[in-house]
């Protein structure tokens, strides 16, 4: 197929349509709203054979989505910022309930103060809900990752959140290539759940569990999240075989393979980091971008494998892990690499919060400062 031009939100809606989703429950919030609007239009115009539920809040959105998934429907919703926070209780419930779901979270800062622009605090605040979390950096990757997310969630029965940056990707237009519907159908066949809430199904769902059953159930969720890493990588390869595009598995090394200075980031910032890497090259610093594409489950093993001994790791966080002195990604990277006990140096900066713009020149100057700190 030839490339078309659309916004990130437009590409997201197209992928949801291509995935032949059955149920969409949605509530508007900037900068997500145009996804919900487009999907409502697809349904109203008969371009999509789905039920659209305009419910009264994000808590109800996630509750309706949980019920729809439990009833065996392929389910989608989208939100941002306060909307995601309002879903928080039900996010735990859907992961614990092992309900396949895909949600697009268009990253936006959270209150207070009020702010419409991008950062990752909304998603990072959900990191312990048991969901799988992707962060993407191009409009093509939004489209492709929505399809991949369904393939993953329906096999491992853990809900998936696809995160992309508000305005910088949601409202920016860039060329991308939709997939041929026949190829999408081949990659993502109709959903056949292992069980479903149905009058003829004799089981119970979400019942009270004593400690032994609860413990085992929650342990399985933790273990299956670990298994999800291999599943994501293998399905990303299947996607590549069938549809021909690759965005990395759990992480994406962007730049010279022999680089020993690594600029680690997530989301759209990772694209700009590639330009910062070129600026650092002019200062004689051989650097590469290392994009974390899957934040949950965190790719500890892949990181420990890929980062060379003696590397200087510079982490850019678009969020605060309040009370830790840095961002969430910094803590995660340090924890992931601690066991190696070789001479890796790690430092980080919180940048780009509340839409602070991050041109390559700023990323490069901050990287240079961090590099000098590590060399002292």
């Amino acid at each position: 197929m030839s490339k078309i031009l659309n916004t990130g939100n437009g590409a997201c809606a197209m992928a949801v349509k291509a995935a032949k989703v059955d149920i969409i429950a949605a509530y508007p919030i900037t900068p997500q709203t145009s996804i919900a609007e487009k999907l409502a239009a697809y349904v109203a115009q008969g371009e999509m054979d789905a039920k659209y539920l305009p419910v009264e809040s994000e808590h109800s959105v996630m509750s309706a989505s949980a019920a729809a998934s439990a009833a065996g429907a392929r389910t989608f919703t989208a939100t941002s910022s306060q909307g995601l926070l309002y879903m928080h209780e039900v996010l735990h419930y859907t992961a614990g309930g092992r309900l396949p779901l895909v949600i697009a979270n268009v990253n936006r800062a959270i209150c207070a103060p009020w702010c419409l622009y991008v950062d990752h605090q909304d998603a990072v605040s959900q990191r312990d809900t048991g969901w799988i979390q992707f962060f993407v950096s191009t409009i093509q990757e939004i489209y492709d990752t929505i399809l991949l997310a369904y393939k993953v969630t329906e096999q491992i029965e853990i809900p998936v959140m696809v995160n992309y940056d508000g305005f910088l990707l949601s409202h920016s237009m860039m060329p991308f290539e939709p997939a041929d519907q026949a190829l999408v159908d081949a990659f993502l066949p109709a959903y056949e759940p292992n069980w479903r809430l149905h009058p003829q199904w004799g089981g119970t769902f979400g019942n009270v569990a004593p400690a032994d059953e609860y413990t085992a159930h929650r342990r399985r969720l933790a273990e299956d999240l670990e298994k999800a890493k291999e599943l994501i990588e293998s399905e990303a390869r299947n996607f590549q075989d069938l549809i021909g595009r690759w965005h990395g598995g759990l992480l994406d090394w962007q730049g010279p393979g022999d680089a020993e200075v690594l600029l680690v980031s997530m989301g759209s910032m990772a694209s700009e980091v590639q330009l910062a890497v070129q600026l650092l090259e002019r200062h004689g610093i051989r650097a590469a971008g290392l994009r974390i594409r899957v934040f949950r489950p965190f790719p500890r093993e892949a990181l420990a494998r890929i980062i060379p001994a003696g590397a200087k790791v510079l982490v850019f966080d678009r969020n605060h892990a309040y009370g830790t002195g840095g961002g969430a990604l910094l803590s995660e990277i340090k924890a992931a690499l601690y066991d190696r006990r070789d001479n890796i140096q790690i430092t980080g900066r919180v940048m780009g919060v509340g839409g602070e713009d991050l041109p390559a020149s700023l990323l490069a100057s901050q990287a240079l400062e961090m590099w000098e700190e590590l060399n002292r």
Partner: protein
Amino acid sequence: MLELRIHGRGGQGVVTLAELLAQAVLKTGQEVQTLPFFGVERRGAAVKAALRLDSQPILVRSLSYRPNMIVLLNENLLSLALSEGAAEDVFFAANARSPLPVNAAQWLVDATGVAVQNQLIFAGEPFINVPMLGALCRILDVPEPAMESAIREQWEEKTARPNLAAAGQAYHSVIKIQGGAA
């Protein structure tokens, strides 16, 4: 990479202009990106959008600080636009009938006049973004058929017709001058 920063006011269709132009540019085989900046979303407030063109995929995910070209839907946005930065060799495209007070190359088109002549008027306001599209396609060497198909993809035939006429008129009436004293 060529970077444009389009300045207008809320209600003038800055975002639609950027998107239509990007659609037309894509048809020439170039990589393109629009990045609107949403500030206060009210009629009359100053709004802007970046448009980037390149031969290779565009990695920039930040706002426009040093555009090669500044596009003004209103002449009176000139000082605001300059205060937000520009490349040293920046040139201008403006909806204006007389030269801008800058010492730089500039393309001028009477987009308001073209809109009025083609009855592109909504709620008493001329729709100047489509005439500006015509002028910008000419400036960026986008062939007329690419511009026309971008318009046809946006609107059905009846609505497309006056827009096609206005864009074509602006395509052929935009003029280039070397600016006067700054």
